[in-house]
């Protein structure tokens, strides 16, 4: 229990401490943050493989401070703390000259503590508490990233979108707790709820809350904006790693433990459709981006689609693929963002037009990029290939081939966009005046570790599947060892590389993507313009131009609506003001003017009034009284 409490409260306690060091002692504060991340990682590794439940009294009414560690939570906990350590180490160098630095490690540690809390919480309400707490630091990170108004606007956008997601989650928690009669997750999981009636509402709300955190459609629109405005380690830390892990972790719990998703075809189809749509729409947007970080941020959205698709299949292979993809994606996307940070740090620009040929001077960064890009594009034998393969298999097994095709198409476009990105930045022609040197080892270290994991989880895909994923699913309907009970074939895909038709599909995808890139190069003339033939394709061009005007952004559309609503309320307010404020004030003013003008000092008036008053008094007495 101490370890669990440590993982939650040590970062929270250390956050003000880290911020309290200023001036020359700033480095001490940074070191404290890194050290705390390390301690938390050690604690989560020590917790690995345990299954414990601890309860402390909290708010009463069945809202206990209960924490539970079990394989699925272990997986998420190790992932979160691992990324936290790497990103904090990376930020040591990256953030050293940034104005946002004073608040950076404070927000970082608070986020870590809350994320650990959200993972370990066993009570739904406690989980919600930590979950909502993350909003605060999300806002802090974004609003204090730079000293301009754009990042405040983006922070507000992120806050509102995530707030909307959290409201969904809150509704889901309330309905789930009410249906189950308990707020304890373990008790809920003991008898998964059926998805119909209120159960359907509870499932939809909880799933929406989880997916909003992961950044799926339509809760994704703040991420590309944040990519432009926020400091880069934030992107690697939250949208790329922590939020994906938290969101998919919760989605897995909702789909596997709280609700019996495997018996609801409609919800599975809905999830898979949402997943496929997220994959395709986001990757189409990613393809035409011309900025390093923004392009990556669209991929961060797109990849969530794979995880949702995998979990939505509801069969052991697909669910295992979804969870494995969650880990893999966090690894390679984090690595990709970090390479972006290194380039930004050295070159000072992230526009693709202004970059090129960096592989010569930044070979290690380029190598890390290539490995991670290969992994995200699903090129064997890197880790992304294996998790995607499981998802393809799971999608095929459902019998709805459309989802499989969508997933493959997504892969194709992902590879195409990374060919464009890699070619533009690291190869091709170097622009005049771009003199860069290799990134500092402080930054290369975390990148190398992540790239290394990409390779290890690829060549040795059997290991993470056996030790991380399979135990997490034990006891649920997606338990691989029980697969036959549910009528699934024993999934040989869970045992690493083998050359079947999916492998050849992947080779085909690689060939097609390369062909597309070659075609784009011929048409566009430079690697930066390699996707222009898609961007301005007949029909698509129009949709793209609408998307670039944020026509499809629910936040922007909502804000426009809010604007009209606000105008209406403003007018109503003015009308009310007129009657409660302007009119009485004007009348009072007029009466006051009259009274003060009348008191001009002329004695005749005064005497006249007094006489009139006397007459009036006499009239009052005689009319209302009984005088004759």
């Amino acid at each position, binding site marked *: 229990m101490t370890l669990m409490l440590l993982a939650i409260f040590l970062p929270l306690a250390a956050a003000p401490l880290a911020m309290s060091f200023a001036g020359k002692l700033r480095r001490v504060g940074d070191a404290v943050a890194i050290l705390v991340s390390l301690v938390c990682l050690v604690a989560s590794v020590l917790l690995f493989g345990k299954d414990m439940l601890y309860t402390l009294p909290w708010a009463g009414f069945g809202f206990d401070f209960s924490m539970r560690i079990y394989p699925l939570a272990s997986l998420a906990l190790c992932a979160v703390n691992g990324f936290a350590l790497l990103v904090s180490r990376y930020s040591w160098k990256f953030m050293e000259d940034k104005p946002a630095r004073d608040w950076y490690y404070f927000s970082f540690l608070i986020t870590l503590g809350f994320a650990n809390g959200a993972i370990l919480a066993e009570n739904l309400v406690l989980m919600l508490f930590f979950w909502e707490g993350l909003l605060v630091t999300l806002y802090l990170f974004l609003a204090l990233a730079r000293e301009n108004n754009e990042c405040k606007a983006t922070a507000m956008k992120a806050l509102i979108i995530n707030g909307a997601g959290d409201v969904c989650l809150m509704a889901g928690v309330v309905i789930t707790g009410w249906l189950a009669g308990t707020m304890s997750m373990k008790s809920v999981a003991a008898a998964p709820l059926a998805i119909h009636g209120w159960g359907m509402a509870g499932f939809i709300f909880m799933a929406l809350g989880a997916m909003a955190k992961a950044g799926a459609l339509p809760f994704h629109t703040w991420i590309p904006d944040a990519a432009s405005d926020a400091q880069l380690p934030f992107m690697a830390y939250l949208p790329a790693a922590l939020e994906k892990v938290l969101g998919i972790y919760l989605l897995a719990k909702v789909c596997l433990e709280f609700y019996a998703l495997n018996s609801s075809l409609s919800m599975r189809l809905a999830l898979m459709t949402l997943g496929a749509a997220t994959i395709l729409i986001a990757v189409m947007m990613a393809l035409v981006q011309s900025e390093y970080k923004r392009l990556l941020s669209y991929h961060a959205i797109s990849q969530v689609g794979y995880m949702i698709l995998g979990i939505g299949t509801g069969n052991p292979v697909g669910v295992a693929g979804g969870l494995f993809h969650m880990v893999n994606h966090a690894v390679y996307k984090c690595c990709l963002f970090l390479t972006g940070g290194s380039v930004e740090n050295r070159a000072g620009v992230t526009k693709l037009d202004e970059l090129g040929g960096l592989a010569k001077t930044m070979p290690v960064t380029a190598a890390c990029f290539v490995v991670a890009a290969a992994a995200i594009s699903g090129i064997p034998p890197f880790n992304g290939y294996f998790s995607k393969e499981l998802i393809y298999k799971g999608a095929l097994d459902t019998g709805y081939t459309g989802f499989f095709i969508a997933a493959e198409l997504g892969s194709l476009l992902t590879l195409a966009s990374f060919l464009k990105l890699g070619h533009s930045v690291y190869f091709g022609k170097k622009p005049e005046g771009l003199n860069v040197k290799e990134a500092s080892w402080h930054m290369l270290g975390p990148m190398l570790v992540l790239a290394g994991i990409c390779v290890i989880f690829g060549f040795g895909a059997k290991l993470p599947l056996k030790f991380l994923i399979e135990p997490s699913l034990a006891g649920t309907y997606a338990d691989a060892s029980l697969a036959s009970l549910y009528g699934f074939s024993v999934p040989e895909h869970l045992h690493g590389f083998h050359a079947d038709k999916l492998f050849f599909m992947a080779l085909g995808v690689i060939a097609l993507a390369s062909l597309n890139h070659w075609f784009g190069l011929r048409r566009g003339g430079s690697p930066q313009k390699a996707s222009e033939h898609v961007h301005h394709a007949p029909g698509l061009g129009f949709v793209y131009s609408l998307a670039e005007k944020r026509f499809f952004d629910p936040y922007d559309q909502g804000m426009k609506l809010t604007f009209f609503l606000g105008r209406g309320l403003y007018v109503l307010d003015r009308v009310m003001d007129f009657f409660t404020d302007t009119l009485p004030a004007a009348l009072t003013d007029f009466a006051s003017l009259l009274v003060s003008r009348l*008191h001009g000092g002329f004695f005749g008036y*005064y005497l006249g009034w*007094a006489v009139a008053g*006397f007459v009036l008094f006499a009239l*009052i*007495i005689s009319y*209302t*009284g009984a005088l004759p």
Partner: protein
Amino acid sequence: MTISYFSFVSIPALAALACPFVAKLKPRYADMISGSALLAGLITAVSYIWEFHQPVMAALPPADLTFNLEVFRSDIFSLLMIIAIYLVAAAVAFFSIFHRRQDSRAGIWQGLLLMSAAAMSGIVSARDFFTLYVFVEVAAVAAYALIAFDDTAEGIEGALKYFFMSAPASAFILLGVALLMLYTGGVSFAHLSRAASASAANETAVVVILGVMACGFMVKAGLVPFHGWTPDAYQSAPAPVSALLSGIVTKAAGVYALVRIAMALKSMPGNVAAAAACNGLMFFGGLSIVVGALGALRQRDFKRMLAFSSISQVGYIVLAAGAGTPLAMAGAIFHLFNHTTFKASLFLNSAAIEKQTGTTDMKSLSGLETRMPWTALTSSIAMLSTAGIPPLSGFWSKAIIIFALWKAGFHGYAVIATLASVLTLAYFIVMQSRVFFGKTPEHLLQVREAEFGMLVPVIVFSAIIVALGLYFPILFTGMAWPAARTVL
């Protein structure tokens, strides 16, 4: 036990006679005599609170229904008024020692103050209308002289306006007294109630008599529309005199008598004419509240604004007295006392400002809070109390008045009283921010705080305002409530 208040009238009257003569020796002697006489009177009056027992109205001897002056006996209401009178008179006398340091006519000044205090004490302890009338006239004469004391054209004009309004009023009062004498064979309050209780027809006649007198007292109280003289007189009088006039003279000579008349009217339940007369009083009270507050809003002169504010506050007292339930009556008495403290405090502050800056025109004043911090502080306490902001004394009395009006069924008047207190706050905020807040202009940078002696009275008033606010039962349940109960 009956307490004779004769000494409250006789001692200042004698001191007033002595003042001009000792001032020949040294003008400061007059200050000493006046100050010590008034202070001693105040201490004695306050000490009476503890000795006070419910007064027993001595039954009139049956044979003695002829001309009967039943003077110098009183109840707790009179005692409360005497405390207020001595408080204000002592404060003004003390204040003038420093305010009029260079004045060679201190003997006459202090003598007039003492005479005014003596006359007012006479008014509130009188038990018949003739005595009351005599003292009202004495107080008025002292007031004319005080208003015109500085021999300025405005002062004389103000005094003359007061005189020309007051003289017909006195005539009305005297007419009422004569009618009463004619009708009941005596002029005491006891005769009045005895005549009223004789038959319904007599009651109506008594109402008419009271109505005639009420018209006179409404002029003295400065109630709209009988108020014409008030703004001009208060503005043109020397500021300490304005404090005395607004703080106590109009209260004792006008409002006190009106409250007594309202009490008498209320002692005739079921008489339609009495109810109608009460309605008339309430109407003029409500009118005063509104017109006074509206008039105050646009004033440029500090003292003139305070004058309009006085009209408005007197309206509250008369409105509540006209409503006539015990709670309303107690509220009226409580507000009467509170108004004495805060309005005297504000007028004394205006005197300090006039002395230090040479003007009371709010257009040329600004940012005095940095220059005159104590004046600014006491002024804001008094102003917040007037506007009825808790926990100051004015809040309680206003709240009681409004609750009582509502409970008595006068919902319209209760709403008017509540809305008018918003206006009160409005004009006082205008005043406070114009005079005390904001940036201090160049020509006021040399202004210094009033000297300590001038601050003492206003600080005492502020302390009373705060104390009565925090421990409002002291005055309310201790004095105002019994006063209202015993008389009704």
